[in-house]
């Protein structure tokens, strides 16, 4: 079952882990009593645990290797995973989506306000993920400063509301537009950059926006932030807290549906194909007559638009914002959502957002270990399924035998 080689390697791994965790988990110094507690049992746990995990990983690799060999020999026909079949076939996909939509519509009436609140947050990240997916997943531009546009949206509503009492519904398009403008602003200097260099510049851009918000007191009230932002009004009516949350939840559902609709139509369009081509090969893309500048700027602007909209919603939801909400960690989480879910795949990003946002919420019971578990999930995912939970599938076209026949 296990080869000697595998056992040996796993043993080494477990020894190494036992050694690494020794100072932290085994020795416990009590400075008051001046005693040292040796907790050898911890070492045993670590050793056994890492041994088993390492063994599992080795077995998994071996199996994959075997599969690859067999596939190369043409022995097995890869059967498509169930999820891909469902996503491909409209006759499964439409009923599924309607069912999911109905479930989400009745959700707040079945569960507590607390649960609804969490789900609102998760839905916000779904939108952010889908927005970043345009930039990273489709156009292949690694953007580490995505949170800047989120901040632009949030602050544009907060400031407009604070100074001019602008309502949520008017601020929503304004925030989106401002974020798009910032997207273009960032896009211009990075047109020539790719990969790592692009990542660094966008990272810097994100930090610049945050630092400006933190230090320009006259403009943004600095670290103390802006409070008392109004919640979205329902035809001029003041809503109680509970119904305001309910209202926001339905707004979010509508926004997510709208986002999915738009992104879905974009990705199989002329411009969507141009983005993917840009991701695949920039030089060939230009040689095929695609204007690199325009395509890149559109991607940045559109991605930023979504972040701007979610920013406005965020400000309206929390009624208080300060620069601490827009740190690099936010960008990293949104990027994780896209990468973990599956680059370029709408369904993947939705799953990614729900998992990454809901998991830490419900893992609160594990308190101290929740971030550890979170990290472990990320690492295992990247090892076992680097293409994400749901890989992107390209649209296929059917042709009838006759050449004159219509496409699709």
């Amino acid at each position, binding site marked *: 079952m296990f080869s000697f080689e595998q056992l040996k390697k796993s043993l080494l791994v477990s020894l190494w882990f036992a050694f690494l965790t020794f100072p932290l988990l085994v020795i416990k110094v009590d400075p008051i009593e001046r005693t040292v507690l040796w907790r050898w049992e911890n070492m045993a746990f670590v050793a056994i645990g890492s041994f088993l995990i390492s063994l599992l990983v080795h077995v998994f690799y071996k199996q994959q290797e075997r599969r690859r060999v067999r596939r190369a020999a043409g022995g097995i026909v890869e059967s498509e995973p169930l999820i891909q079949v469902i996503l491909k076939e409209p006759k499964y996909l439409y009923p599924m989506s309607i069912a999911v939509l109905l479930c989400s519509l009745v959700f707040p009436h079945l569960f507590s306000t607390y649960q609804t609140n969490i789900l609102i947050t998760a839905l916000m990240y779904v939108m952010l993920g889908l927005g970043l997916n345009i930039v990273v997943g489709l156009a292949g531009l690694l953007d580490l400063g995505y949170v800047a546009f989120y901040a632009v949206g949030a602050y544009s509503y907060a400031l407009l509301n604070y100074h001019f009492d602008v309502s949520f519904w008017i601020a929503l398009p304004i925030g989106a537009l401002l974020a798009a403008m910032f997207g273009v602003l960032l896009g211009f200097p990075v047109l020539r950059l790719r990969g790592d260099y692009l990542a660094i510049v966008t990272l810097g851009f994100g930090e610049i926006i945050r630092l400006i918000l933190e230090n320009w007191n006259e403009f943004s009230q600095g670290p103390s932030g802006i409070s008392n932002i109004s919640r979205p009004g329902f035809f001029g009516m003041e809503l109680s807290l509970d119904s305001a949350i309910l209202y926001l939840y339905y707004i979010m559902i509508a926004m997510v549906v709208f986002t999915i*609709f*738009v992104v879905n*139509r*974009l990705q199989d*369009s*002329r*411009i*969507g*194909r*141009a983005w*993917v*081509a840009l991701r*695949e*090969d920039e*030089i*060939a*893309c*230009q*040689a*095929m*007559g*695609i*204007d*690199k500048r325009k395509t890149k700027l*559109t991607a940045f602007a*559109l991605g930023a638009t979504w972040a701007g909209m979610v920013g406005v919603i965020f400000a309206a939801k929390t009624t208080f914002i300060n620069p601490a909400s827009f740190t690099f960690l936010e960008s990293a989480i949104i990027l994780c959502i896209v990468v973990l879910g599956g680059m370029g795949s709408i369904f993947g990003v939705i799953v990614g957002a729900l998992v990454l946002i809901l998991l830490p919420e419900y893992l609160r019971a594990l308190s101290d270990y929740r971030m550890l578990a979170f990290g472990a999930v990320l690492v295992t995912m990247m090892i076992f399924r680097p293409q994400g939970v749901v890989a*992107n599938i*390209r*649209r*296929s*076209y059917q*042709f009838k035998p006759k*050449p004159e026949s*219509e*496409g*699709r």
Partner: protein
Amino acid sequence: MSRPVLQVDKLSMEFGGIRAMCELDLEVHKGQIVALIGPNGAGKTTFFNCVTGIYRPTGGNVFLNPPNGAKPIRLNGLKPNQVTEKGMARTFQNIRLFQKMTVLENVMIGRHCRTSSYIFGAVFRTRSTLREERETVEKSHLILQKVGLANAVNELAENLPYGAQRRLEIARALATEPFLLLLDEPAAGMNPQETQELDELINRIRDEGHSILLIEHDMKLVMSLSDKIYVVDYGRKIAEGSPREVSSDPAVIKAYLGEDIDA
């Protein structure tokens, strides 16, 4: 004779102090297949890159004369996508397909510069966008039939066998509706059977009214296809003429085989 479709005047390219190409003249006439040959590192691909706008040449001029009699177009300083829009498309020496896209989508990308729908049209699926999409799919499919890839439309480009990838590159370039096609070593790495098919394909493309400029190392292919051959070495033109003239030119023999010791 009418104006050449492609007219290159004293084109030079320097990288720092290195002269990769020195005052090269070249003409391609309508319906011709012209080959550019020379030993490795002679500057052939540099020539392609200068003409198509990937490099900015340091001297000389490139003119494109559309066969429909429109005004000559000066290509210097244009970006690659603008050059393609003017009617000149190219393939690459090391295959540069969009690997994670399907075969059909690769060709559809070629139609990008001949279509115009944008975000609004894509989101609202306006009538003109739908018509454009349908046309794009149909035309791309026709081109794929022409190069013999119609049964692989939904395959990912990376899964195609090597020879098919080469043909897909040609199909993609054809989709941009060029009157001049630049092929950079289309037969590289092909077996004799595939090369034979390629020979037929290139001839067919020419018969449809495209002019072709190609770089190629396979001498058999070059000799059977070309109407005219230019030979370059160390960035300079050392010979030009019909296949027969070139193959008996002493300078060419010297460049390819080295100098005779006794001479």
